[in-house]
């Protein structure tokens, strides 16, 4: 049962709290990504689970065993960093066979086993190829194959795709996920790349300033984040100051510079100042026929980003918003200067209380 339990873990570096009372439960065979801005403590947490850093307080369990005092080699885990550390003087195949060999497996067994791992990883490289002859992607896959060949129960990945080009990165993440699935490992993956984390994880752990902000499935956290920080961190979002105009059993109407919109929101009262968030793809831009009174304005900028079209609209009430439409070949309204109206997809707008520590601190990305 290689689930992982982190209970009240704290870690200080000099006077700085790298981790503050972090608790977390990861289930057997779950793929969990830890994401957050740089300096949030995500790598420190992973290193504590790995045993590379010893926490100051709290406990760590892998399966049913408390491993808090165990050295890394007794924790039965595979660990992979951003910087590939393949042994340069060994062939790639010998690199992958390193784990089985040091554990005393015989030559023939190791040879066959490495062959299987290579096949599983879809690595087509010659037996005599050395690491420096590999492309970045193949090198990274070899490092992953080596981690897997050591037959860990738990795989810890610290920016495993970080050194790669965006294009290769986006291909390899699915390979990584498939491989972990097929072998049936529990994996914890640290990344700064939201899309990567959402694409391959069962659940996400959002961290900030040494603490866990929110935990949930990618869909939950993207569509209905509980915290304003999560809403802004997980993807682009419009952030609009507003005030609660009406509030009735979970149905909230907020007013932004005098114009009303329905929003999700809880614990809000009428007249309260709030922050309204709306993802660009939850705003639909269409030509204004002149009868509309609210949420109308003029297009200021329009860009084709590839899979979507991004439109910046200056509304007549002074707000500027970004809308994004899928590029499906049909004509999308909104040439620069055109008068348009903006509609909201139901459930898209979310209203949040203004955090007590202030908006800037809540939204800070560094």
């Amino acid at each position, binding site marked *: 049962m290689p689930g992982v339990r982190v209970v009240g873990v704290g870690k200080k570096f000099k006077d700085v709290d790298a981790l503050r009372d972090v608790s977390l439960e990861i289930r057997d065979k779950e793929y969990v990504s830890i994401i957050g*801005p*740089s*300096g949030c403590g995500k790598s420190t947490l992973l290193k504590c689970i790995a045993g590379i850093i010893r926490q100051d307080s709290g406990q760590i369990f892998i399966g049913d065993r408390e491993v808090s005092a165990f050295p890394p080699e007794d924790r039965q885990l595979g660990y992979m960093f951003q910087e590939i550390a393949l042994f340069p003087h060994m062939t790639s195949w010998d690199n992958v066979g390193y784990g089985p060999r040091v554990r005393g497996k015989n030559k023939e067994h190791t040879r066959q086993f490495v062959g299987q791992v290579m096949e599983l990883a879809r690595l087509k490289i010659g037996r005599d190829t050395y690491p420096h002859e590999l*492309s*970045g*992607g*193949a090198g990274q896959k070899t490092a992953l194959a080596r981690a897997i060949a050591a037959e860990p129960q738990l795989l810890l990945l610290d920016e495993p795709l970080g050194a790669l*080009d*965006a*294009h*290769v990165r*986006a291909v390899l993440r*699915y390979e990584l*996920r498939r491989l972990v699935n097929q072998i049936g490992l529990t994996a914890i993956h640290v990344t*700064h*790349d*939201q*899309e990567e984390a*959402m*694409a*391959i994880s069962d659940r996400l752990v959002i961290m900030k300033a040494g603490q866990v902000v929110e935990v949930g499935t*990618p*869909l939950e956290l*993207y*569509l209905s984040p509980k915290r304003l920080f999560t809403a*802004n*961190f*997980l*993807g*682009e979002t419009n952030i609009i100051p507003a005030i609660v105009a009406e509030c009735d059993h979970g149905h909230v109407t907020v007013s932004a510079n005098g114009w009303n919109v329905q929003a999700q929101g809880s614990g809000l009262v009428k007249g309260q100042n709030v922050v309204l968030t709306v*993802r*660009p*793809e*939850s705003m639909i831009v269409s030509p204004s026929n002149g009868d509309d009174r609210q949420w109308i304005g003029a297009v200021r900028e329009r*860009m*084709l*980003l*590839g*899979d*979507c079209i*991004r439109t910046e609209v200056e509304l007549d009430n002074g707000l500027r918003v970004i809308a*994004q439409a*899928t*590029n*499906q*070949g049909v004509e999308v309204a909104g040439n620069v200067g055109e008068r348009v109206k903006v509609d909201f*997809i139901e459930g*898209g707008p979310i209203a949040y209380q203004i955090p007590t520590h202030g908006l800037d601190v809540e939204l800070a*990305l*560094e």
Partner: protein
Amino acid sequence: MPTIRLENVTRTFGRTKAIDHVSLEIAEGEYVCVLGPTGAGKTTLLRLIAGLTTATSGRIELDGREVTHIRPEDRNASYVPQQYALFPHMTIRDNVAFGPLARGFAPQESLEAADEMLRLVRLAHRATAFPHELSGGMQQRVALARGLAGRSPLLLLDEPLGAIDARLRMILRYELRKLAKGLGVTVIHVTHDQQEAMSIADRIAVLRDGVIRQFGRPSEIYEAPESPFLANFVGGANFLEGVVVREERDATMINIAEGFSITSSHDDHGMGDFVVASFRQEGTIILRNASLEENIVPGTLISTSFLGSFLRCVVNLGRAGEVIAKVPVRDALQRKLPDRTGELVYVRADRGRIMIFDRPARSLAVELEAF
């Protein structure tokens, strides 16, 4: 008159042609991204323009003046390398002021320029800090400010957002463009990230193996890529190999596998040509039920992954291979699209959005490779 003109520029390192007969014209005030995979020659191209490496053959002009063999400091260009080196013992303000100082500005003037640029990159509040006290992303912005503070009309940026976390990078790319446009400088920005290039550039030069494969506005490259490599590298697409089996005035029909063909609107390919039919992932529509009309084929859902605004669905079409559909998430939720692997679905691609390429001389897999 273009600010930058490259004519048949080649740069070899030993037997390797890092840059292979590149010709390029960039106008004043333009923001150009040089996009390509690792090893394509992007940094070499930038260093050639900066004067940090010399062309083996060919000619480089800046502002109508030949500079092929002119020293970097006489080119009136500011180069910000990927491995920017901030002076560790100097404050952020002094680091930035070093840019104009090195270009002969007076000390007071240099400090004023530094303060202004720090405000623009939103680091004015950290002016008295030392580099090691800042995050990687902040340090990169300091390097950028130093490059800008010297007031060169030409800014050469090598992966200027490379060290910055994904979310912040998304914000900063729009700011970087606004900054450059506000200052009126000409920018050449090297990146391997196609989304970054699409959202920031007036024009993109896609480089592969030292050769410019296409140079055009983002929309041109996206809507009319000149090869399967370009379609794949910029935006991603589905590719199916086949043979042209019917040619009509307004349609070309391509046989992909037995009982499966694709119809595109007019195309120049003729009967019997071996081609690759390609369509964008966001133009690949998934249906729960359908009759088998034009360009609708049944398949099996292999996997789905959530990308935020899109749901990425991999569908197996049997002998024709796999295709990927990017479905807007709200749309997927509203239409209750199948989400269990193994389910039967239908895939549709509209004829107007099918791109047809010659079948590459090498295999399709080699053509698409970007490693």
